[in-house]
């Protein structure tokens, strides 16, 4: 029981991080019907950026957090301007290759800047872990869960209540109709990229105290985030949250009770199963296009 609970706790923590990454995929997909294969690399940039700012340059934690997220959002801005806007034939195969290229490029830059070694950061707070029936719940885990749920609420409010959020939703439903009502469609796409990469950076900064961070951490995290987004139904914010938690817990239980070496294969197996059987996701209502 204690063991099971411990696995669930660590699954919840990892799942919350997958959920934030999934949110980034969902925001971008919702607005542009595009899947960014470089999304995981923005998580890596957020994590390593924070470690440099906070541990390397000794900037106070709160300011370093904001700077890391803003810096990554700026890179997301440049990415959209330089690599996505310039494409003359925006077909999926072209955009896939470009975002895969961006992913490899950013990983290469990460390796040059931060080297091949893994980096880590101390815990943000020094509270004693809470004891729940013998299993330890770290303060860090609670903090991560709170951040994730708050972020989902904030994004939900943004898309439902604010004018800009509603304009983004409108632009994603029909480009032309939105343009006719005076919504600057191109700005909405740019904003979607900036928001999506910024949430990627948020995932990166909250992960730093609980895991080793290195230049190549992004690919796996990106794929798991995508898997979570698919589980919950791509484009849905609450689906992303639920999908992330489900994946995190399943993975943690699988690693604990079956084999830790195959831990990562669980996510990919789940991803393939979802793609084959129910591409609209467990929680997705309408059928998603496979063609």
């Amino acid at each position, binding site marked *: 029981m204690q063991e099971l609970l411990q696995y669930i706790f660590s699954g919840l923590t990892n799942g919350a991080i997958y959920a934030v990454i999934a949110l980034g995929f969902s925001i971008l997909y919702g607005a542009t019907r595009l899947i960014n294969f470089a999304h995981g690399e923005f998580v890596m940039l957020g994590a390593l950026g924070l470690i440099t700012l906070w541990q390397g340059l000794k900037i106070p934690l709160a300011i370093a957090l904001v700077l890391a997220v803003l810096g990554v959002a700026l890179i997301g801005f440049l990415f959209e301007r330089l690599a996505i806007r310039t494409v003359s034939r925006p077909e999926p195969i072209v955009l896939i290759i470009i975002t*895969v290229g961006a992913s490899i490029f950013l990983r290469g830059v990460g390796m040059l800047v931060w080297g091949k070694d893994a980096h880590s950061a101390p815990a943000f707070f020094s509270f004693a872990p809470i004891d729940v029936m013998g299993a330890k719940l770290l303060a860090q885990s609670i903090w991560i869960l709170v951040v994730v749920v708050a972020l989902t609420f904030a994004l939900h409010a943004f898309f439902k209540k604010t004018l800009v959020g509603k304009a983004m939703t409108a632009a994603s439903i029909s480009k032309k109709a939105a343009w006719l009502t005076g919504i600057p469609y191109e700005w909405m796409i740019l904003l979607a990229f900036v928001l999506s990469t910024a949430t990627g950076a948020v995932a990166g900064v909250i992960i730093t105290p609980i895991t080793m961070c290195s230049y190549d951490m992004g690919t796996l995290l990106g794929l798991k985030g995508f898997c979570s987004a698919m589980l919950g139904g791509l484009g849905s914010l609450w689906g992303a949250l639920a999908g992330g938690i489900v994946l995190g817990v399943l993975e943690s239980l699988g690693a604990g009770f079956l084999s830790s070496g195959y831990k990562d294969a669980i996510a990919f*197996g789940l991803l393939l199963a979802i793609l084959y059987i129910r591409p609209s996701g467990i929680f997705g209502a309408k059928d998603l296009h496979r063609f």
Partner: protein
Amino acid sequence: MTQSSLHETVRIGLLTGAVAAAGILFDNAYHIQVLVFIGINTILTLGLNLLMGYTGQISLGHAAFYGIGAYTSAILTVHFQFSPWAALFPSLGLAVLVALIVGIPTLKLSGYYLAMGTLGFGMIVFIVFRELDFWTGGSSGLAGIPSLKIGSVDLMSGRNFYYLVWGAVLGTLVVSRRLIESRVGRALRSIHGSEHAAMAIGVNTQAYKLQVFVFSAFLAALAGFLYAHCIGFISPGSFDFMASVRMVTMVVIGGMASIWGALLGASLLTLLPEWLHAFADYEMIVYGLILMLVMIFLPQGLLRGLLDIYERSRNA
């Protein structure tokens, strides 16, 4: 024989001559080795190009089939004392079987989902290579793979292996060429143009996509078999996601839907690390930039794109 297929025959004849001449002229073992790698990469690129360039179906996990070809043969020869030639058929057969099983559900997907599906498949196979350490040696790899022999002639000595690989390249080139110009080739290109339109005119798109996927997996496994017996040592690192990206880059730089482009792409990207010292540190940056820049500015590939620019400047 039409004009264009006559041109093709001449080109293949010229390439055969060039291969033979290079085999005689190059004396240095290092140069021969580089040419062997160009050949292996050309086979890989040709296979992926049939799938990606001609049929428009992306695969981000093709290194899996390359790895299956290499590992099956390596395991059978090292652990079960198969002769390498006897291991050729099981390794190609396993790749084809896996491609069939994976291809049937995966090729129902398209676009981003297909890319993610193949990426996930590639990752799973990579994890299996790494974790099945009883057979594969895990991350530290599998050494002592025997070299190929015909009778008492060791193919590893001198230029024999070079001729073997380039013989396979020429064979693959001719078969690919014939395939493209056949009824099947036209069906594949119609799928690239529009899958719905192809279906509407009676092309069984699922069957064709599966066939070309299996064929490209077969070629990747053949390349993997040659690679394993050429190097004598394999490790999972040669078949990871980056390996799949390298293959895609070779297709993209040579130009999608171009058989000769495959030769160019494979040659350029095999030579690049040899020319650029300290390339290992910049490898990912270079590949990433190539993928982005070629797709943004020269979506037809380097060769076609540069020719277009040249023609435009001459006409202006």
